[in-house]
């Protein structure tokens, strides 16, 4: 179970990294297309109007996917910012209590959010909502990562909560300060 969970967190992080690379490639190909177009125009006086269709919109969708798939992975690395200033000055027991409460409370918020993201996905699917760009993308597809990512975040928060409950070391609740 432990290994399965850790693999899921790690895997979703890798997917997120993949989407970052995808943003990079999409944007870079549009920039190269612009550059090529510019050169052609210099030589022939005619513009081909090379475009990667809907590239801005697609980059946005990839960004949403990258941000949300990375949620559990980022949590496991203790990279989500939190304030530990007060915590550090509390006795050990109070720290554990607050860590457990924070994990379970946050898991509830995250699960609540995920639930309504699923509803949003269902709705977009049902009404056949399309994006407004050159290439109409069914909106439920780019919305799906929000639902999956936040559900995984809820799972990893529960996971950390139970570990904190049994006072085991856990990277997510470790008393450390995130990067600014």
């Amino acid at each position, binding site marked *: 179970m432990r290994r399965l969970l850790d693999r899921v967190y790690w895997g979703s992080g890798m997917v997120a990294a993949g989407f970052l690379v995808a943003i990079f490639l999409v944007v870079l190909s549009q*920039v190269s297309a612009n550059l090529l177009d510019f050169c052609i125009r210099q030589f022939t006086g005619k513009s081909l109007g090379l475009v990667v269709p809907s590239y801005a919109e697609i980059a946005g969708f990839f960004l*949403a996917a990258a941000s949300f798939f990375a949620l559990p992975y980022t949590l496991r*690395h203790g990279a989500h*910012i939190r304030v530990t200033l007060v915590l550090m000055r509390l006795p050990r027991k109070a720290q554990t209590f*607050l860590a457990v409460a924070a994990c379970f409370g946050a898991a509830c918020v995250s699960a609540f959010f995920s639930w309504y*993201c699923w509803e949003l996905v269902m709705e977009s699917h049902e009404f056949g909502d399309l994006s407004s760009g050159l290439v109409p993308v069914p909106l439920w597809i780019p919305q799906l990562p929000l639902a999956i990512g936040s559900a995984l975040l809820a799972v990893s928060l529960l996971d950390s909560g139970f570990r904190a409950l049994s006072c085991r070391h856990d990277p997510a609740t470790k008393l450390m300060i995130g*990067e600014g």
Partner: protein
Amino acid sequence: MDMSLVSGIVLLVFMFLLLGAGVWVALALLGVGLLGMVVFTDSPAGPLMATAVWGSSNLWSLASLPMFIWMGDILFRSRLSDDMFEGLVPWMGRLPGRLLHVNIIGCGIFAAVSGSSAATAATIGKMSIPELKRRGYSERMVLGTLAGSATLGLLIPPSIILIVYGIATDQSIARLFMAGVLPGALLVALFMGYVMIRAKLRPHEIPELTDTFTWTDRWNALKRLGPVICLIAGVIGSIYSGIASPTDAAAVGVFLALCLAKYTGDLNRETFVDGLLSATRTSCMIAFILAGAAFLTMAMGFTGIPSGLATWIGQMDLSPYALLAALTVFFILMGCFLDGISVVVLTTSVIQPMILTAGIDPLWFGIFVVIVVEMAQITPPVGFNLFVIQGLSNRDILHIARAALPFFLLMITAVALITIFPQIVTYLPNNM
């Protein structure tokens, strides 16, 4: 006291309870928004939450954020800090204060390729702290100049925090970037001026120059700075000239940074994956905070708290100067406990209507907030530059904060200057 003030105070207390208990900032923002909606309005919280978050997480302009972060992460793992140090030393030896200026100029240059002040402090300090101490510079001045100038990472474009502000307040990121240039230069000038004056007054703090440099040395040194300067010119130049949007320029920046790292032999599988994963985590953290802030802003709008506060402040008939002075104190206090990005997003969800009512230009206010947040980076107990420099120098935070105090005061001067002469901020964006 009207209702909006009471509900505002309730939510503020709840927010600080959550944050103090160590709840992750993004989730705390979502939680407070949720409470506000459920308790003070009849609107359906869940569906609005999903829509607000979706709407704020797939923005094209936000895509520049992971790209700029990634670019900084690639360069951080390259030999750049050696090159910066070696390249700057021959140029700075003659100025009063000598190599202390390496810290300032080095941070200024690195700030132009990185949007984070922690990364700036780490990259420049890695080389300059041991080297300058070895040459006998006073440790206090070495740490102070580094802590102070590293905050330039937030102001000199590309700046992560200006992207966050631009997204949260619906301002053009390209214009914000331009607005940051002159205030950044102003800060560099203030810092350098201070170091020179201090060096004249206390010459014993600055060791004699041991090596002499010829003009040949200087031109050779310039070659080591060349690649970085080309990178800056390419990325920032294309934004300023309007050829590329910030996101396009950021992707090109990543490409150039990869080429640069390849050229200097610092790019291998390990550093590539390392940099990419670090960028994934940092950008996820920031995007999630922005998503939480988007929902909080929407929830606040439904509760009517910000507009209520704006009217309330409006009725007090404060002059804009008094309002700004009060806000400065408030931000510095908040910055003592929160990181810069959280301060900015909290600000925008509650204070934005107040600013507009008071007739303050939101573009100018963005730069103002960033400089104040910069000051918070070097104030204890929570100041990220202090943490980074603590890690590099093994001195405790209070010691570093004392060393940085003069630079804190210089930043207050800068805030006063841009308040009296707002053209420092608005000139470039209005004339390009």
